[in-house]
């Protein structure tokens, strides 16, 4: 998934101004409004964000220690730990477990990291059936598409789209009533849960001191995935740890509020090892795959702060670029500002060199990020990397000197942009049309320094939540 065959600009150009993208924009605005309400009713939000940032940065800075502690704790409660350098190793391990169990059916709860490693395709090649169980992911899987949002995967689809899809793929009468569609999915998926051989989940957090993993879902598919099948495999990016249960508590205070404005997700599920003697149910086997897949490279580089991300999706919802092009314009499951940093950092910058430019550097993402990740700074660091890699930069043409200056003097660049000029202009004038195409020069570069007619924050306040 790391080397897209098309560029961001090409994909974005297909998306912009389509009904699909308008649906994503509306959805993102709604989520932003919900977040705002959730944050307003929670006076401790700002101090919790500070604390959460400290916890995440501290964990990342001592990741070797916490990983070792976590692995020992998982094993102490009877779980198995596998360290995977890359996607192939992770998939290879899952395939071995599946083969040993003669597994035919795997249920999966929503997990970005299994998308990252292309797990479904790897397992399907062995003849194992994989069923996505998050309603949105299930719809995406049936439609053979990709999620357009990390929290709300089918934000781009209307109820009619889903009705037609279910009628076609599940052989049910057409309905566009969300309650009916919901019921159809419940019935279809329920029997698969109860018969599945293996449940594969991600992990929102791992707790180093106890070896627990925490999974949050509103639907309950996370709980079913980790309870019904005899074998549970959790795939976890290696940076997803927190040191203690108290630290997990801090994360939970801010995660659901930032994502959708909820005080807590409906099911906050903490799993510590397999079923124990006396437990009437639960999985007999518990495996954790700890995945590097480029993360140690990120950790040692200039964008390591992105490893603090807790995948709440808030930065997507406020991003003027994301909202104009949807998650489908990005080259991986990770989209929006977070994805624009993570994907070129994790994988090669080659093939992803446009992503660091898929941003107006307006800073809306930092304002909402629960762990206050300085995304614009990280994007600038990546731009610098693109600049230094002359070859990868040909597509920008000759008008890049402005960027070269900017990329090496980030503070001046941000100051120039803090007026929000680009944001307002971009939105009103159709931002994508002015993006540099692979064959063209960056003829509009002077626009970047034009002063704002209306400062960004004013514009934002006027428009948000509407």
């Amino acid at each position: 998934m790391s080397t897209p065959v098309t560029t961001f600009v090409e994909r974005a150009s297909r998306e912009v101004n389509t009904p699909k993208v308008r649906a994503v924009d509306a959805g993102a605005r709604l989520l932003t409004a919900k977040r705002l309400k959730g944050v307003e009713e929670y006076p401790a939000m700002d101090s919790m964000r500070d604390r959460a940032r400290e916890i995440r940065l501290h964990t990342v800075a001592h990741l070797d220690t916490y990983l070792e502690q976590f692995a020992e704790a998982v094993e102490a409660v009877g779980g198995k730990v596998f360290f995977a350098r890359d996607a192939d190793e992770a998939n290879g391990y899952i395939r071995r477990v599946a083969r040993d169990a003669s597994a035919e059916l795997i249920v999966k709860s929503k997990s970005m990291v299994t998308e990252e490693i292309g797990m479904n395709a790897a397992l399907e090649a062995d003849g194992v059936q994989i069923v996505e169980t998050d309603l949105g992911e299930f719809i995406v899987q049936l439609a053979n598409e990709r999620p357009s949002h990390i929290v709300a995967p089918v934000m781009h689809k209307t109820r009619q789209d889903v009705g037609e899809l279910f009628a076609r793929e599940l052989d049910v009468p057409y309905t566009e009533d969300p309650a009916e569609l919901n019921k159809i999915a419940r019935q279809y998926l329920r029997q698969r849960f109860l018969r599945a051989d293996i449940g594969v989940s991600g992990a929102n957090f791992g707790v180093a001191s106890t070896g627990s993993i925490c999974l949050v879902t509103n639907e309950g598919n996370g709980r079913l995935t980790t309870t019904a099948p005899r074998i549970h495999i959790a795939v976890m990016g290696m940076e997803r740890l927190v040191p203690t249960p108290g630290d997990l508590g801090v994360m939970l205070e801010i995660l659901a509020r930032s994502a959708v404005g909820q005080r807590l997700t409906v099911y906050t599920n903490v799993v510590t090892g397999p079923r124990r003697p006396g437990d009437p149910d639960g999985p007999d086997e518990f495996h954790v795959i700890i995945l590097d897949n480029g993360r140690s490279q990120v950790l040692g580089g200039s964008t390591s702060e992105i490893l603090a991300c807790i995948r709440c999706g808030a930065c997507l919802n406020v991003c003027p670029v994301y909202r104009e092009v949807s998650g489908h314009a990005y080259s991986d499951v990770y989209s929006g500002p977070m994805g624009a940093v993570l994907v070129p950092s994790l994988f090669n910058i080659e093939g992803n060199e446009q992503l660091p430019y898929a941003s107006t550097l307006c800073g809306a993402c930092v304002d909402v990020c629960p762990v206050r990740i300085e995304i614009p700074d990280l994007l600038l660091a990546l731009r610098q990397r693109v600049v230094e890699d002359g070859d990868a930069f040909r597509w920008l043409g000759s008008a890049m000197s402005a960027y070269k200056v900017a990329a090496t003097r980030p503070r001046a660049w941000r100051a120039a942009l803090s007026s929000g000029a680009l944001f307002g202009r971009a939105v009103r004038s159709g931002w994508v049309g002015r993006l540099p195409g692979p064959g063209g020069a960056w003829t509009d570069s002077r626009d970047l320094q034009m002063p704002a007619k209306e400062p960004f924050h004013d514009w934002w306040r006027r428009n948000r939540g509407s």
Partner: protein
Amino acid sequence: MDRDAFLAGVRTAVARNRVPNASAIDPGPLVPDLPPVDLVAMFSEILERVDGHVHTGDALQALDEVVALYGAGPFLSWDTDRLPVSGAVAHLEELGCGRAEAEVSNQPDARKAHQVGYGDVHIGLTGAEAGFAETGSIVLRSGLGRPRMASLVPLIHVALLPAALIFRSPMHWLAEPETDIASDSNVVYITGPSRTADIEQQLNLGVHGPKELHVILI
């Protein structure tokens, strides 16, 4: 990959890491000093806001109400000695509900055959070890006599919670010295019935977990 080699790689990366503020975590108190509130009232209000229902008063009578609302049917339950109301299981049986076997085999085929039968489970009866007033949540712990499925597969989940176990917030509960989230294989916070807003952000209840959540305060 070999663990030592993996960790050695991480160690090298950590040594090069330039993340800001990466020192030790501020150990200051996480539980703010707040003016006291009526925890039961707050719990009830917030739980109802997330589409749960709260019953106070006689627990067995509350069970009558639940069965009158949704009808009788097969139920999965925690064992009587794990519930704060000793007559609850027997009472549901008297109301015409049949208790389903909750012990799942460790033989793969027997396990599947057993679980497929959970398709008709109508009611789940559980206890709860804590409640959170600020979030309207209840905490359930797996273990002997406490099947996880009882709060997961039925359409209607009924939880018996002693009102004295309601804490102000999850952080307050975690700050208690006796709280241990890892001493059993599963601890779950449940905040209202199962919900989704995946299709056009329209709220729908009961997508995978229970559609109704009734908390009976003891």
